[in-house]
């Protein structure tokens, strides 16, 4: 009987010990802050040590990922065919308008002697990196890339894909970096809705990476479906993120004026498919100038 009680006591003590240790570790981690400490150093060490294996595993699984992705895309594409035909026609019209606008902008640039280029920020020294680790749950949207401090990657640098903004670097080791995506719950990006230039904050909806929200847009402002959303170049003081101006984020899909009283909430679909990223570019230098849009 006494042995049985001892077993129960020991089992409960171990369980309590593990829970208390976890809570203490959590407290210590938060206590270290973002400047780092023992736990951050251990985390960096583990990431550095395991990054070659992670990269290998990631490469091994790439064909499987591509296959399942292809199957999914094929099913989706069948349904989107008609929709895409209409979009192509619309884009042709927009292209013609853009070419005219680009020529006008070129002339204006020459007049103003501005050193600007269309597209991503110039002289930002982009470093291309492979994604070697994906987020384990929808509650945390972070990825790990195979470039770190040795390649010039530093905390707070913007990360983009070929399609648009992906996120920013939040931790680095010598050979790897953690990127917090714009779909992470902690993310907030100052943005402008073009062509009217309305300013707002892009925030994610946890669990739905295809639907971001632009908050703090004045209720009276008129926003059209299909308007482009780009980074505004200023930082939100609360989150201290800093993205150069003009990086595309997404397109407006819906406007819901009834959700809030003072502001309307704009739904956008991100340009970058953040669930299927294989490569990203880290903008490792501050651009010499803002981009022209």
């Amino acid at each position, binding site marked *: 009987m006494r042995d049985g009680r001892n077993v129960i006591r020991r*089992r409960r003590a171990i369980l309590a010990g*593990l829970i208390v240790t976890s809570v203490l570790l959590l407290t210590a981690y938060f206590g270290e802050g973002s400047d780092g400490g023992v736990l951050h150093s251990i985390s960096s060490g583990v990431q550095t040590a395991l990054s070659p294996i992670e990269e290998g595993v990631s490469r091994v699984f790439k064909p499987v*990922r591509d296959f399942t992705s292809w199957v999914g895309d094929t099913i989706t594409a069948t349904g989107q065919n008609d929709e895409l035909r209409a979009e192509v026609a619309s884009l042709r019209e927009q292209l013609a308008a853009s070419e005219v606008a680009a020529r006008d902008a070129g002339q204006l640039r020459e007049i103003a002697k501005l050193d600007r280029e269309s597209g991503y920020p110039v002289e930002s020294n982009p470093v291309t990196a492979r994604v070697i680790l994906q987020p*384990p749950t929808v509650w*945390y949207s972070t990825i790990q890339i195979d470039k770190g401090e040795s390649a010039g990657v530093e905390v707070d640098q913007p990360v983009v894909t070929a399609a648009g903004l992906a996120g920013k670097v939040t931790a680095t080791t010598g050979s790897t970096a953690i990127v917090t995506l714009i779909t992470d719950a902690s993310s907030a990006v100052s943005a402008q809705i073009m062509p009217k230039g309305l300013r707002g904050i892009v925030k994610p909806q946890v669990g739905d990476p295809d*639907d971001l929200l632009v908050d703090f847009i004045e209720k009276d402002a008129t926003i059209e479906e299909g308007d482009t959303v780009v980074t505004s170049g200023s930082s939100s003081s609360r989150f201290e993120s800093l993205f150069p101006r003009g990086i595309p984020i997404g397109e407006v899909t819906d406007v819901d004026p009834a959700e809030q009283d003072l502001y309307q909430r704009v739904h956008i679909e991100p340009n970058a498919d953040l669930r299927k990223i294989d490569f990203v570019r880290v903008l490792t230098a501050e651009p010499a100038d803002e981009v022209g849009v």
Partner: protein
Amino acid sequence: MKTDPSALVRVTGIVVATVLLQVSGVGSIELLGGNFDLIPIAIAAIAYCAGSVPGAVTGFAAGILLDLMVGREVGASALPLIALGYFVGRYRELRDPAHGLTPVAVVAVSTAIYLVAVAAVAFMLGLDALISLLVVRDLILTVFLNSLLALPLFWLIGRTLRPSLHIDPFVRRRRRGRPIESGPIGLRGLEV
């Protein structure tokens, strides 16, 4: 309490391999719009085979490793996984189910509880964002996909741990039948 070094090596191997596979490969494979999550399956399998204390300790280790690898708050994943390992182990110790499909039910329930617990911890740590209803769809899909992997992974982990276990998980067992009713003096046919 004695710790068998070979058991430690086997469990460590399973935990490291599972976490690595999950974050580097399997987690990004999208099927039917959802993703597999190997970690709760592995912890449930270890706890099911080895018991509540090894289950809780393994859950703790897996959670810490996961947090260190993804650069997250250390301990955040450990809490749900400790609870998962402990309760699956206790279920096995108390009920000792013998049905062949029990792992499927165990994995389905474990995955659902684990995902809800992860969400609860995220809120506890100060989640500041709107939550989409698609979270529920993801949860259901992950539970379904994980259930598909339950039997093969329980088999694989059972085989790996087999030499270190007190009770062989592959010995066919039958639940003990109800005792035959008898009379007060223990002779059938003379019941009062």
